[in-house]
C-alpha cells in the first residue's frame, strides 16, 4: 500500500500541461525513497559487519539475533498499527512484564497451554482497556498508556510480591519458544508468522485501510463511514496482545521472569524500531515490514558493538542519533510534500 509503483497501472487522463505528471513523478520518487529509507542503511550495516567481524555472518549468530529480538519484533509490529491508526502505546513494556509473571506463576503449577493463553489474554485485556480509555473518555493516548504502564507495573509487582520467578527446564512450557524446526527455534517462526500476518493486515485488508484513514484524518474517515473508535480500540488490543505474546515467548526462552522486566526500556526500544522503520509518528502512514527492518537494524548495531568490542556506552549514543535522523528525515519528507 505504501508502494504506489506496484499498483500504478491505470493512467487516467493527463492534465493539459503534463505538469501534474511531473509532480506525480517527484512524489513517487519521494515515496519510494521513503520505502527504501531503512533498507539501505540496514544493508550497508550488514555488509560492514560481515567484513569487519568474523563471527557475525555465522548462522548461529544471526539466528541468535532473531531469537533475542522475537518479542520486540512482535510488539513493534503491532505497535506500528497503533501508530498508523493515530495512537501510541507506551504501556507495552509494562504489559510485557505483567504477562511474563502471569505466565510464570501459572506455568509453575498448571499446564503450559494455560500459562501461554493467560499471558496473551492478559495483554489483550490491558490493550482493550487502553483502547477504551483513549476512545470513550477521549484521553490522549500518550498519557493514557503512560499512566497505564505505572498501574500495570504495580499489578505485576503485586502478583510476584517482588520476587523473581524461576521455572525448571522440564515442561512443555520450555518447548513453546525453543522447539527447533529446520534448526530455527519456534520463537523465530512464531514471530515470522505474526509479523507477516500483521503486515498483510495493514497493507492488504479493508481493516488496514481503515487504520490508515483513521490516523490520517479521523474526521474525514468518520464521515466516510469508518468506525474510527472501533479501529483504534482494535489496534490497542492487538498491541496489548502482542506484548502478552512477547512476554510468553521470552519467559519460555529464558525460564525466568520478574515484574520489572520489559518496562519503559522495552517500550522505547519498540517505538525506536517503529520510527527508524519510517512509520510516521503523526499517524496515517507506515509499514510493518519496515518496522521489522528497523528493529533488526537497532539489534544489529548492538550486536556489532558487542562483536567488535566497542564500549557499550557508545551504543546508546549512536542509537539516539539514529533515531533523531530517522524522525528528522520523516518531517523533512513531509515538509517537502507540502
Amino acid at each position, binding site marked *: 500500500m505504501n508502494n504506489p509503483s506496484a499498483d*500504478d497501472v491505470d493512467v*487516467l487522463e493527463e492534465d493539459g*500541461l503534463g505538469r501534474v505528471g511531473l509532480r506525480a513523478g517527484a*512524489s513517487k520518487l519521494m515515496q519510494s525513497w521513503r520505502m527504501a529509507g531503512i533498507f539501505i542503511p540496514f544493508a550497508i550495516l550488514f555488509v560492514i559487519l560481515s567484513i569487519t567481524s568474523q563471527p557475525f555472518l555465522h548462522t548461529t549468530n544471526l539466528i541468535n539475533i532473531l531469537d533475542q529480538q522475537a518479542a520486540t519484533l512482535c510488539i513493534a509490529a503491532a505497535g506500528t498499527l497503533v501508530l498508523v491508526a493515530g495512537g501510541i502505546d507506551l504501556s507495552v513494556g509494562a504489559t510485557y512484564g505483567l504477562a511474563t509473571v502471569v505466565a510464570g506463576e501459572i506455568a509453575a503449577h498448571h499446564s503450559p497451554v494455560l500459562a501461554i493463553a493467560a499471558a496473551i489474554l492478559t495483554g489483550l485485556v490491558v490493550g482493550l482497556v487502553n483502547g477504551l480509555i483513549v476512545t470513550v473518555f477521549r484521553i490522549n493516548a500518550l498519557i493514557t498508556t503512560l499512566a497505564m504502564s505505572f498501574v500495570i507495573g504495580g499489578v505485576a509487582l503485586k502478583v510476584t510480591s517482588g520476587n523473581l520467578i524461576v521455572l525448571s527446564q522440564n515442561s512443555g512450557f520450555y518447548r513453546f519458544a525453543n522447539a527447533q524446526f529446520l534448526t530455527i527455534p519456534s520463537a523465530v517462526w512464531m514471530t515470522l508468522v505474526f509479523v507477516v500476518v500483521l503486515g498483510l493486515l495493514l497493507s492488504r485488508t*479493508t481493516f488496514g485501510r481503515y487504520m490508515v484513514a483513521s490516523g490520517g484524518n479521523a474526521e474525514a474517515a468518520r464521515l466516510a463511514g469508518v468506525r474510527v473508535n472501533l479501529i483504534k480500540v482494535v489496534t490497542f488490543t492487538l498491541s496489548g496482545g502482542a506484548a502478552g505474546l512477547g512476554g510468553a515467548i521470552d519467559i519460555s526462552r529464558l525460564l525466568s521472569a520478574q515484574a520489572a522486566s520489559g518496562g519503559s526500556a522495552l517500550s522505547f526500544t519498540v517505538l525506536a524500531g517503529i520510527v527508524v522503520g519510517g512509520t510516521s509518528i503523526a499517524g496515517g502512514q507506515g509499514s510493518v515490514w519496515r518496522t521489522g527492518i528497523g528493529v533488526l537494524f537497532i539489534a544489529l548495531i548492538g550486536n556489532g558493538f558487542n562483536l567488535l568490542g566497542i564500549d557499550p556506552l557508545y551504543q546508546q549514543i549512536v542509537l539516539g542519533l539514529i533515531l533523531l535522523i530517522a524522525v528528522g528525515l520523516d518531517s523533512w519528507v513531509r515538509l517537502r510534500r507540502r
Partner: protein
Amino acid sequence: MSDVSLTIEAGRVHALIGENGAGKSTLGKIISGVIEPDEGTLTLGARHLVLRSPREALANGIVTIAQETAIVPGLTVAENVYLGSEVATMGFVHRREARRRFRALAGHVGFDLSPDDLAGNLATADKQKVDIMRALSRNASIVVMDEPTAALSSDETAALHKTIRSLARRGSAVVLISHFLSEVLSLSDSITTLRDGRLIRTVDAKSATEESLIEGMLGRSLTAAFPVKAPADVAAPVLLEVEHLSAPGVVDCSLVLRRGEILGISGLVGAGRSELARAIFRDAKVSAGRVRLGDAELAGHSPHRSIQRGLALIPESRKDMGLLMGRSVRENVSLSRLDLVSRLGWIAAIRERRAVSKVLEKTNVKAASMALPAMMLSGGNQQKLLFARSVMCSPSVLIADEPTRGVDVGSKRAIYDLLVEMAHDGMGIIVISSELEEVLGLAHRVLVMRHGRISAELSGEDMNQQAVLAAAFAENVAG
C-alpha cells in the same frame, strides 16, 4: 506558469482570475515570496526584489491572506492578529494596548469579533477575518488575497468588500484572486485573466463583462451557468423524511425529499445549515426528532450506518473533513465502500481499481494516475473525488454541503451537471450553499434557515433572491 508579465498599481484593486490550475494562486505565491520564480524578476517601486520567503515579502510590505487560514488555535483572536508584531516592551506583551488597537481595527473594518475568544473555537469565516485583520494591522503596501470570501456569508462578504475598497483608497495595492466573477467585476479596477499558466489579457474592469471574463478563462463561452432543470415530480415517492429534528445548532427542523428532487438549503453562515446536514447524517447528538430514509429509520450516532442505509454526505471542508490528502486517489474514493471490492476483509486490488476507475470516469475526475496523492489534484478535482466516493456508495439520498467551494468556473459547471444527472437517475439531493445563485439555479425547492430553524420553504415563483434573503434575515421566525 510561463512568461507572465503584470503591473500592479498602488491604490488599485487588481484581480487575477482563471480556472483552477491556471496559475493565479502560483502567481500570488510568487508575489508573496512563497514560491521563487524560475525566471523573471519582481520590481517594487524602483527596487528590484528577490523574495526568498513570506517573511522577506512581509518586510517589504507584502502581505498575503491565503485560502487556508493561518491561525494559532490556542491563542486568542487579538493575540493572533498581532502574532509576530506584538505590542511589547522587552518581551512583555501589553495586553490592554493590544486589545485597544484590536477594537479600533475591528471597528474600522466592521468585523464583529471579540479579542479574547480562542481563535480555535471560531467558525471558518471568523478565522478568515482574523487573517485579514492581521494583514491590515501591518499597514501593507501590497495585500494578496486568495479567495478571501469563499467561506463568508453575504453580509460578511459585503463588509470585506468595503474593507478592500478602503485599503485601496489608503494607497495599498490589492491583488484579489477570486472565483466569484460578480465580486471581481464590482471590486476591481483591473482584471488579469490567466489560462494554462499564460497571461491571456489584462483589461480595465469597466470594459469587462461576466461573459467576456468567462470566455477569456475557458477559451470558449459558457452558454449557461446552470444546466436545465428537469421538472420535479411532486408525486414521486418520498426518500427522506425529517420530522422535528433538534440537535446542537438545529431547532425543530422538518423536511421531505422526493425521488429525483434537488432541495436547496440556504441561509447565512452559522444559521445551522451544516449542523442540520450532520444531524440528518447522524453525526451529531440528536436530542429530538426522527429521520426516515426510505423504509428505515436512522437512529443512534453513526455515520457508518447512515452510509450503509443509503445516505451519503459531502462535507463542507474537503481538506478537514473530506479527503486523506496524503493518500492516493484510489484509496480516497474506495474508502466508504471497501466492502464492494473486498472479500472477508481482503482487498481485491484489481476489482478496486476497476470500480474506482468507473466512478472516476463518471464524475469526470482528471488525475494523471489513481496512485497520485489527493493533495496533488486541483481544488475542483479534489471536490470531484468526494463525489466519486459518494457515487461509489450508490446512495438514495446525497447531501452536498458547499459542493463548489473554492472550485473554478469550469469545474463548477461540471459539478452542477453531475448533481442534475444524479437527480435525474433517481437520487434525492440536498444542496447546501452560501452562493445564493447556486441554490436558486439548481434546486427545485429551497429551504431557508435562520438561527437553527427552517424559516421558509420556497418553490416555483416564490423562489427568488429577494424572498430567500428576506427569510434569511427575517426577525420573526415561524416554525
